[in-house]
């Protein structure tokens, strides 16, 4: 046997050295030159052949990989000198005042890297109470609006030319002086101003220009209340309405939860008085009764809603007055009119009010001062002044007197006013006499507008001196007597704009430069200079007693400074109501003619911010229509005229007409009335873009001048169907709940007897294939995020919807996409109508003869009589149902199911469960099969059908650099083709956890708030850790009223709803 030949590679192997043996254990027995490969120094020619091949192979692979993606070059410019308070990645918060409308809610502004990205309510503010409406939420986008003017503009012959501020100032001052010396009058037309400093600026102006007048103009005014109070009590104010002190509120068309005066404040107070947990047998909630034509937000939340024809309001109001007067033993109004609503509603309401003397409230949305005087009379008899209604600590939020404005319009036309300054006022759009004003403006020697956007009025002026956005401005406010708030800039002016107050001060030659405390105090001699107006405010506040910097800064920090409330007095009525009988009679319209009732959309309001896409895409809480106004039609009228949803009609009254309005048949619209929202149909010009596309149509011209005010009720309009059709963009198209157990409700009486009332359905048997997850077990040490939503508090105002969209960079998709049912809102408010009783007899019992009313001796016969009368008129009784719908609002977002149907079906695990109970989306992993959305029983998942950012087909704010500044840097902007949904603001959770960890403590309950929770004026949404036995959400989860939607699917949602409680009596079965 031949000896096997031995080969060896080197002497190490031959002699089997220790190093050799060790190296044999490695896969590569020579060390790989990885370090060399990866360090640049050795990339030279020192490589041998093998290494060259390695480099070569690596390079080819790397180059081809790198070539797969062309990364755009983006430059990041670091701070040369970092401001002390800004740490990139950390948010700063500043308290300020909302400038979206003159209600002036206190807000907290969140800024990141020096740009404001979110506004929320400031809990210190008695006006906002920590909540904020949808309009206020959305107003932040106005700062980053490409339609804003980027500097002063001279308008000549319809074209706009940029000018320098100095040139504008010189010319304006010259012309003002010329007008002054020539004896012409000067008008400053403003929206309501309650800022003490701004009013002082105007006073300064009036001191210098002695023939200047300040005219306050509100597009939707409360002139009726103001003048009624002036005439009744000698106080031209809007009183404070203390909903918290009332047990009954009766509203005639005043949508106090949606748009009336100060809805955020009222919603807060109202919802506080609707709490039922632990209520005693004698306990009372704020019983809410409303008489109205259009279905308003308040109407959907009222315990009793009585449809009425608004042109008959004077009839019902005097009937109510007389009914109460009878009980009070006071003289009745001697008036030939008297009326009663079906079922004796007026009588019953009178008795309800009388039972709660001194703790009741009657309000009216009418702008007719005479009707408001009757309201005053009723409240006087009920002894509500000094308790629920406070004239001494009044509201300053609206001050406009319509007759002043009407006089101005005439004087302008006649040439008496030779110079006009418009400040936060756009009468050419919103005033019914806009043509008169537009014509008058041509005669004026000087007209200046402070509008930030070239609005309808501004384009007719000589100059536009654009005001700063409120987030760029210093200001103060006194929304209610004794409540002072400050506004502070949270960003340097984005454009070359100048605050209006500063413009006026400049024209007055007042400059505080010499006493500028910031001059030359910047680091490295960087020149900082304070705003002229800031110094002006400080001097005014010093006069108020806030002299020191510390005191001022404290107010600035808190955002609010309050002085002690004045003692409230019970006023005396100075007017005999019998003297206004003829005016009242004149205000009553014909019964058989159609009433047009103009109203404000909850988000669009008076239309001053109507170019804001967030506002337009927020669905109307009742009709769920976005991006348009429409004629809201009752079913009976629609069928009579043969009109259906999507038809077009012309609405005509005398010379005013709106052509081609789309129709929406609105359940709840009173028979014989139609409704149209104001605030639409804006026109304007924007730089090169030309005309702004008009959204909807302008209904302001329908406003009627009545007893010195413009009222929103027009009796005798004609509607004619025309050819064509128009699809309204609705986010919800099916309105009935189909008898499903999705929302639960009960009555106050029942819940007093049984706290589980309405929620005592037998629990379903639940089976599961899966093991109970570790985090869900009793005493698990982790967080389990959960949310409780109180249907009893939620009014459906939709502030949460907007807040959520802003916080989470939810794209706006526009009208066309909403029509395709593709809105991206992570949170929506489901609104369901019910006809509680389809059976005729039941219906009568329910509406007319509830136990409450039975006690008050209202006969069954009266109810039957009313219904029979309707039937005798040939109307199907179903019309009555359509007029009398009940409404439930249910906020709906991802339920974060413990056993989520979406999670099991995703083929790539893009949606998974966190150990903290969150159902999380991994956008990067999502391939867009959409299976999860199909399998979601709650239908809350939203798919990115298109690329919504940087796409000019979606020309909202995601396609331009300015609009993108509002993007929340903590939240990914999703790309095309991925699914998205509510994350329970996981970025806020993470921020809260990080903060707690850094401070070495446990996260406190309530420290992390979701965007919807922060926005909610009603406090209906509570978020927290359900594993923490002391947390509020834990307690709410144990509450007898709490239930899960679709519990029988055993999805084990992390969201629970609380049963809605109506303060009505249920009919005995």
């Amino acid at each position, binding site marked *: 046997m031949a000896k096997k030949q031995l080969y060896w590679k080197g002497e190490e192997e031959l002699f089997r050295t220790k190093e050799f043996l060790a190296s044999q254990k490695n896969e590569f027995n020579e060390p790989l030159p990885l370090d060399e490969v990866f360090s640049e120094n050795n990339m030279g020619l020192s490589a041998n052949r093998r290494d060259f091949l390695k480099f070569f192979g690596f390079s080819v692979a790397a180059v081809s990989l790198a070539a797969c993606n062309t990364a755009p070059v983006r430059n990041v410019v670091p701070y040369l000198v970092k401001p002390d308070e800004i740490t990139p990645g950390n948010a700063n918060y500043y308290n300020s005042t909302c400038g979206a409308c003159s209600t002036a809610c206190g807000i907290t502004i969140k800024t990141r890297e020096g740009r404001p990205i979110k506004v929320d309510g400031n809990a210190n503010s008695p006006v906002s109470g920590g909540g904020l409406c949808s309009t206020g939420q959305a107003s932040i986008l106005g700062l980053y609006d490409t339609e804003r003017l980027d500097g002063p503009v001279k308008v000549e012959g319809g074209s706009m030319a940029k000018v320098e501020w100095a040139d504008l100032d010189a010319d304006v001052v010259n012309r003002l002086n010329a007008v002054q010396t020539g004896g012409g009058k000067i008008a400053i037309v403003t929206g309501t101003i309650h800022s003490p400093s701004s009013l002082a600026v105007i006073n300064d102006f009036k001191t210098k220009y002695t023939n200047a007048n300040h005219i306050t103009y509100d597009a939707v005014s409360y002139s009726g209340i103001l003048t009624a109070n002036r005439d009744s009590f000698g106080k031209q104010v809007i009183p404070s309405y203390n909903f918290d002190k009332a047990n009954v509120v009766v509203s005639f068309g005043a949508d106090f939860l949606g748009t009336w005066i100060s809805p955020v404040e009222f919603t807060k107070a109202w919802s506080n008085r609707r709490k039922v947990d632990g209520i005693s047998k004698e306990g009372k909630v704020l019983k809410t009764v409303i008489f109205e034509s259009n279905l308003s937000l308040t109407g959907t939340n009222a315990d009793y809603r009585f449809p009425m024809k608004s042109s008959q309001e004077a009839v019902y109001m005097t009937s109510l007055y007389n009914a109460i007067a009878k009980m009070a033993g006071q003289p009745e109004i001697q008036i030939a009119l008297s009326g009663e609503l079906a079922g004796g509603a007026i009588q019953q309401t009178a008795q309800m009010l009388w039972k709660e003397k001194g703790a009741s409230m009657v309000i009216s949305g009418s702008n007719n001062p005479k009707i408001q005087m009757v309201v005053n009379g009723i409240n006087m008899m009920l002894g509500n002044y000094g308790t629920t209604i406070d004239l001494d600590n009044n509201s300053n939020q609206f001050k406009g007197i319509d007759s002043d404005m009407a006089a101005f319009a005439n004087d302008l036309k006649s040439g008496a006013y030779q110079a006009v300054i418009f400040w936060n006022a756009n009468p050419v759009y919103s005033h019914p006499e806009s043509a008169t004003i537009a014509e008058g403006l041509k005669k004026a020697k000087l007209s200046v507008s402070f509008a930030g956007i070239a609005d309808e009025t501004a384009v007719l002026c000589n100059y536009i001196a654009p005001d700063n956005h409120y987030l760029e401005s210093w200001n103060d406010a006194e929304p209610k007597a004794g409540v002072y708030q400050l506004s502070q800039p949270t960003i340097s002016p984005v454009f070359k704009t100048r605050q209006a107050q500063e413009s006026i001060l400049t024209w007055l030659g007042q400059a505080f430069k010499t006493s500028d405390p910031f001059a030359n105090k910047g680091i490295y001699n960087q020149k900082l200079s304070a705003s002229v107006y800031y110094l002006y405010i400080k001097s005014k506040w010093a006069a108020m007693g806030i002299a020191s910097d510390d005191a001022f800064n404290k107010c600035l920090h808190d955002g609010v400074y309050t002085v002690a409330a004045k003692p409230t007095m019970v006023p005396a009525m100075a007017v005999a109501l019998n003297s206004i009988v003829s005016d009242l009679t004149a205000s009553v319209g014909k019964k058989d003619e159609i009433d047009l009732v103009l109203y404000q959309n909850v988000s669009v309001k008076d239309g001053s911010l109507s170019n804001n896409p967030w506002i337009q895409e927020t669905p109307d809480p009742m009709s769920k229509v976005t991006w348009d106004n429409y004629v809201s039609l009752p079913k009976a009228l629609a069928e009579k005229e043969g009109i259906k949803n999507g038809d077009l009609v012309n609405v005509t009254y005398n010379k005013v007409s709106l052509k081609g309005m789309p129709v929406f048949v609105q359940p709840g619209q009173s028979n014989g009335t139609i409704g149209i929202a104001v605030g639409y149909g804006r026109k304007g010009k924007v730089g090169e873009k030309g005309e702004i596309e008009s959204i909807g149509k302008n209904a302001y011209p329908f406003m009627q001048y009545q007893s010195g005010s413009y009222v929103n009720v027009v009796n005798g309009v004609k509607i004619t169907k025309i050819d064509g059709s128009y699809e309204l963009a609705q986010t919800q198209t099916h309105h009935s709940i*189909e008898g*499903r157990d*999705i929302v639960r409700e009960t009555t106050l009486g029942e819940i007093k007897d049984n706290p589980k009332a309405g929620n005592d359905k037998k629990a379903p048997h639940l089976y599961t294939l899966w093991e109970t997850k570790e985090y869900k077990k009793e005493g698990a040490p982790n967080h389990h995020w959960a949310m409780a939503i109180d249907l009893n508090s939620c009014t459906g105002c939709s502030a949460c919807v907007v807040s959520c969209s802003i916080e989470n960079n939810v794209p706006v998709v526009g009208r066309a996409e909403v029509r395709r049912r593709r809105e991206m809102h992570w949170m929506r408010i489901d609104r369901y109508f019910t006809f509680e009783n389809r059976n005729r007899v039941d219906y009568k019992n329910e509406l007319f003869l509830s136990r409450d009313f039975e006690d008050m001796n209202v006969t069954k016969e009266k109810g039957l009589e009313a219904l029979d009368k309707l039937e005798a008129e040939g109307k199907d009784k179903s019309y009555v149902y359509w007029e009398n719908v009940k409404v439930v609002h249910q906020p*709906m977002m991802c339920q974060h199911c413990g056993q989520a149907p979406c999670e099991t079906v995703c083929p790539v*695990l893009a949606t998974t469960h966190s150990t903290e109970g969150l159902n999380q989306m991994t956008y990067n992993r999502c*391939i867009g*099969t959409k299976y999860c959305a199909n399998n979601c029983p*709650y*239908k809350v998942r939203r798919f990115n059908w298109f690329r919504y950012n940087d796409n000019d087909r979606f020309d909202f704010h995601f396609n331009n650099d300015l609009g993108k500044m509002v993007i929340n840097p903590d939240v990914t902007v999703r790309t095309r083709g991925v699914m998205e949904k509510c994350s329970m603001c996981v970025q806020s959770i993470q921020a809260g956890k990080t903060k707690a960890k850094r401070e070495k403590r446990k996260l406190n309950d309530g420290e992390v708030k979701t965007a919807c929770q922060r926005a909610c004026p009603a406090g209906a949404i509570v978020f927290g850790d359900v594993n923490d036995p002391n947390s509020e959400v834990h307690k709410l989860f144990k509450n007898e009223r709490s239930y899960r939607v679709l519990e029988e699917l055993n999805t084990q949602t992390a969201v629970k709803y609380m049963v809605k409680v109506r303060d009505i009596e249920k009919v005995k079965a």
Partner: protein
Amino acid sequence: MIHDSVIRPQLVTGDKTLHDVTTEICRPIENKPTTSWTVGFILSVIFLGLLLLSLGVTLAYGIGTWGLNKSVQWGWDITNFVFWVGIGHAGTLISAILLLFRQKWRMSINRSAEAMTIFAVMCAAIFPLFHMGRIWVGGYWVFPLPNAFGSLWVNFHSPLLWDVFAISTYFSVSLVFWYLGLIPDIATVRDRAKTAGRKFWYNFFSMGWTGSVRTWNRYEVVSLVLAGISTPLVLSVHTIVSMDFATSVVPGWHTTIFPPYFVAGAIFSGFGMVLTLLVIARKVMNYQDFITIGHLEAMCKVVMLTGTMVGLAYITEFFVAAYSGVEYEQYAFINRATGPYWWAYWSMMTCNLIAPQVFWFKWARTTPWFIFMLSIVVNVGMWFERFVIIVTSLHREYLPAGWVMYSPTLTEIGIFLGTFGLFFTCFFLFSKFLPVINMAEVKGILKNRE
């Protein structure tokens, strides 16, 4: 040795000799295309162009170019997917199950049925691929591939993943089975080829087939093995497709009878499509002697049987919904029959349950033009079945607030019509370049094969 009964009707008529079979079946391959072939082919290519255009639009702009919305997130896409997969069922059934049951009549139709299967599955695959929002990553993330993304893995709980496996397995096995059966015939064409190009390519694809006893033996064994593998696939593919729906919580989808019901439906639609194709093909290509009335009649019987089974399933669904006491289920079915998409439901019922009952009559089973009409009805009905299941269930689910309507856009319609373009383009090419009838097997069942 095959013992044929003298009284059994012949499977191939016309008293063909072995040579006749070869020449007749090879005729379309070896001659210039006929006018009808050319016209049909051009038409198909135009529709194929429409497919490419529509898919291009989808890729360029996004799934938003379809009519889907927040509640109905599967519409025509998945309807068409299930439709095509269902059509793709008959081929394997004919080739595998009928082979195992020694049904010799299958021999003249199995080739085209298998080809149809492959093309139908190709058409079907377009929809799940392109319905993905991000096909550029989804196209490979759905496979359990090792990756550099950390511990990322696919979700084995997801029926969509099962789909990926089921469809890809079915497609590959069907393709292999089809190709295997083609090898002897390709060799025949090779041997008859006159030009160098034809010689080369047919030689290449015949894989050196010599026709020796050993190759025939292997051929038979592998056929049997593949038939064994394919048989469970016939049942599994549509079972798993049905699980996309059955395992969900959507009322109208969440139904345990879906697997057998879908399989029956698939066979029904598959035979419907085979009939549509063969009634035309036998006429156009003059194959009446190979694909006889007897074949058509046998297939009509299958159509009638499976159609009735499907109809039974429809009725069972209603019963179960009523019996379950679940209001959502009950509503889903009432909504199908009486809701806004009632026309789709009643089209389905008419086409699938009622129409095939005419096959109880012999005349109906043996009249080609009538069979053709009815096969179209079956195809339409089965398309509506998938539409009814998918869209009417999704458009009104649990929360009435999310109830919407759905209608397709031109892009979606274009894709659907385009898949017919792809299907027929493939089929025309197949009939031009490959023998449509399995010559080797047909020769085995000739009466006068001596």
